C-alpha cells in the first residue's frame, strides 16, 4: 500500500463515513452554532430570524440556575467517574481471578447496561421510594431509613448520590469489560516472577496490575468523563431535577444536570436559541476538560 498517498480507494472507502458524518453531525452542529447567535424559536416567527450577537451567551452565564447546573455537573462527574472506575476495576479484578462462575458474573455485571436509561431511572425511583423503606432487613437494623425525611430522593445531596448510584450501576459493567481486557493482556510471567519473589497480592496489584493497565485508564476515564457530563436519561426519570435548592439567592431545581438544564431551557422556558448557546458553552468546556484529561493521562502512562 502506498503510505502517504491518497489514492481513489482512500476516498472511496472514506466517503460513506464522511457523508454520514456531515449529514448527521457536522452540518446540524454548525447550524446549531449559528442558531445560538439568533433569536431562533422553532415556532412560527412573524419577524423572521434575527441575528442577536452574543446576547444568548451573556444571558446564559448570568442565569444562576445555569451556573448551578454547571457546578453540579462538575461535582457529579467527579464523584461518578471515581465511583464507576473504582467499582469497575474492583469487579474486573474479581472476575479475572480463578473463579468457577466467572463468565456468569461478567455477564451479570454487564447486564444493567442492557436496560435503557429512562426505564432504568424509573426502576431506581421505585427502589428508592418504595423498596428501600419496605426492606425488612434494613428497617429492623436501621428503622430511620423508612422515615420520609431520610428518603434518598427527598434531599438534594442524597438525590445527587442516587443519580450517581443508578448511573454507576448502569455503566460500571461496561467499563469493567475494558479493565478485564487490560488485565488479561498483562503478561503472565510478571505475576509468576512476583510470586517467586513472595510479593503480597496488594503489592502485585500496586506494582504490576495498575502500572501495566495504565493505558486502559486513559480510555476509561475519557469515556466515563463524557458519559457523566452528558448524563440525561437517568436524571430525567429518576429525579426530574428535584428536590429544589437555593443558589445565589434564587430557588431552583437542585439536581438538574447540564443536559437537563439545556433541555428545559429549550422546552419549558421557551428559549431555543438560548438553549443552543448553552450547549455551545457546554461543548467548549467538555472539549477543554477532555483534552486536559487525555493529555494528563498520557503523561502519567509514560511515567509509569
Amino acid at each position: 500500500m502506498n503510505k502517504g498517498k491518497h489514492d481513489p480507494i482512500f476516498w472511496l472507502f472514506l466517503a460513506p463515513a464522511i457523508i454520514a458524518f456531515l449529514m448527521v453531525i457536522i452540518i446540524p452542529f454548525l447550524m446549531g452554532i449559528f442558531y445560538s447567535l439568533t433569536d431562533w424559536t422553532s415556532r412560527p416567527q412573524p419577524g423572521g430570524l434575527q441575528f442577536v450577537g452574543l446576547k444568548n451567551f451573556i444571558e446564559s452565564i448570568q442565569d444562576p440556575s445555569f451556573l448551578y447546573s454547571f457546578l453540579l455537573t462538575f461535582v457529579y462527574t467527579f464523584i461518578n467517574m471515581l465511583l464507576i472506575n473504582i467499582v469497575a476495576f474492583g469487579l474486573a479484578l474479581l472476575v479475572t481471578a480463578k473463579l468457577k462462575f466467572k463468565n456468569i458474573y461478567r455477564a451479570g455485571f454487564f447486564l444493567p447496561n442492557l436496560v435503557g436509561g429512562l426505564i432504568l431511572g424509573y426502576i431506581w425511583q421505585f427502589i428508592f421510594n418504595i423498596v428501600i423503606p419496605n426492606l425488612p432487613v434494613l428497617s429492623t437494623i436501621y428503622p430511620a431509613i423508612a422515615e420520609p425525611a431520610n428518603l434518598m430522593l427527598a434531599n438534594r445531596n442524597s438525590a445527587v448520590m442516587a443519580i450517581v448510584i443508578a448511573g454507576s450501576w448502569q455503566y460500571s459493567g461496561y467499563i469493567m469489560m475494558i479493565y478485564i481486557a487490560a488485565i488479561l493482556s498483562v503478561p503472565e510471567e510478571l505475576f509468576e516472577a512476583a510470586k517467586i519473589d513472595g510479593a503480597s497480592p496488594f503489592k502485585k496489584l500496586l506494582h504490576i496490575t495498575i502500572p501495566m493497565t495504565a493505558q486502559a485508564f486513559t480510555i476509561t476515564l475519557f469515556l466515563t468523563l463524557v458519559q457523566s457530563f452528558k448524563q440525561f436519561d437517568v436524571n430525567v426519570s429518576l429525579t426530574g431535577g428535584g428536590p429544589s435548592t437555593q443558589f445565589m439567592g434564587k430557588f431552583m431545581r437542585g439536581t438538574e444536570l447540564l443536559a437537563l438544564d439545556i433541555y428545559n431551557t429549550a422546552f419549558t422556558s421557551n428559549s431555543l436559541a438560548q438553549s443552543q448557546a448553552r450547549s455551545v458553552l457546554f461543548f467548549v468546556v467538555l472539549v477543554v476538560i477532555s483534552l486536559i484529561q487525555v493529555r494528563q493521562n498520557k503523561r502519567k502512562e509514560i511515567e509509569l
Partner: protein
Amino acid sequence: MKKILVVLVLLTALVGTAFAGGNQEGVKDSGVRPTLELLQNKPEIDAALKTYAKAWGEANGVDVVIKTVGGSVDVTVDQMLTVGYAAGDLPDVFVFPGVDDYKKWSEVILDVSDQKWVKDTAVEFVYDGKVYGFPVAVEGWGMAYNAEILKAAGVDPASLVNLSAYKAAFEKMDSMKAELGLDSVVSMAASISMSWVTAHHNFNSLLSNGLPYGDLSVVNGLLAGKVDMDRLEQYAEWVGLLFKYADQAVLTTGDYDAQVGAFASGKAVFLHQGNWADGNIEGAGATFKRAFAPHGSMNAATDGIFVAAPAYYAINKDSKVIDFAKQFLNDLVYTDDGHNYMVKEAGMIPAYSTVKLSPTSPLSQSVQKWAADGKVYSWSQYYFSEDFRNNTLGPIYNQFAGGNINETQFVAALKGAFEGLK
C-alpha cells in the same frame, strides 16, 4: 464465510423492501383518503377518543390519527409541536391549555369565531375578542374529601369554607389518625415533578379564590409586580397547613400514583386533585362517597371550587383538511355519538349546553353540582408562563414542603418572584 454471504444477501433484500415500505409510510397519504391528525394530552381518554375517531372517520371518509402525549416526564404537546414545526409536520388539530401557550402558537391557530358551537358554550377560548379554542371539557378541583371518614370524625364538609375551619378540622382528625385508620389527613404532592399540583393548581387559590368569575385583578397586580401582602400571607398559611398535615413521604417524593393511592385506599381524608382523579380512584377499587369542598386559602369564607375548561382544541390554520377539522369538532357537540363519547366513554364533564348526559363518577358530579349552583372560581394560572410556574414557583413550593424554608421565608420568596415579573 459462505454463511455470512447468504445472510448479507438476505439482509440487503430485506433492507430494500423495508426502505420502500418505510418511505411510503412516512409520507402522509397523498392518495384517496385524507388524514386528519389530532394531538392531545389526556392519556386517560386516549382509548375512548381513538375508538370514537375511528368510527367518525369511517363515516366521513377520513383517516383520523390521534396522537396522545402527556404525563410528568413524557414529552408535552408544546415539545411535540416544537419538534413538529422543525420537521414541517404540524397536526391539524392540537390542544393548548391557555393564554400563555396561545401566544406561542398564535401564528398557526385558526380564528373559529364563526363556528356554530360558540353560542352553545360558556368557556370557549377568547383572545382580543375572537374565538380560537374549542373547550375540550369542563374540569374542576377543590379539596376532594372522603365523606365516610369525615362523618366518622364528626366533621361537617359544609363547614369547610375558610382557614380557621380547615385548621380546626385538620387538627381534630390528626389527633384521631389511629382511630380513623389514617396515615395522614391530607394527600398532597410537592416534589419537583409534581409542580403542576403546587405551582399550577394550588397557586390558583392565590389568584382567584373568592373573586367573581373571570376577575383578573389579582393576576394583573402580580404580573405588574404589585403584591397584596395580606392575601399572600393568608394563602401561605393555607399552603403551610396542607403541607403540615400531609404524609411527608408522599409530599416530598411521591408521584401522582402515590398521592391518589393514599386517598383511594382510605389512608388520607383529603386529596388535592381534581375530578380527573376519579378514574384512578375507582381503578384502585375505592367505592366510598366523595365530593369537593372549597379551598380554605383565606380568612374570609369562600363558597365555590375552581372550574374551567382545562384545555382547548385549536385548528391549524395551514391544515389541508380544515373543513374536516371543523366538522369533527362540531359533531362532538351536535351528534349523539359525540355526546356519548365525551360523557359516557371518556367520562368528561361536557362544556356544551347541547349535551344532556351527565358523568356518573362522584367527583365529576360534585363539580357539576358546584357549577350548576354558579359557585365557581376561575383558573387563572395560565396567565403566568410555564417557565415562571415550573422554574421559579415550583422550586419555592418544594423548598417549603421539604422544610428548608419557613412560612415567612416562603412569603418573601413568592413576593420576590412576583416582583421579578415586572
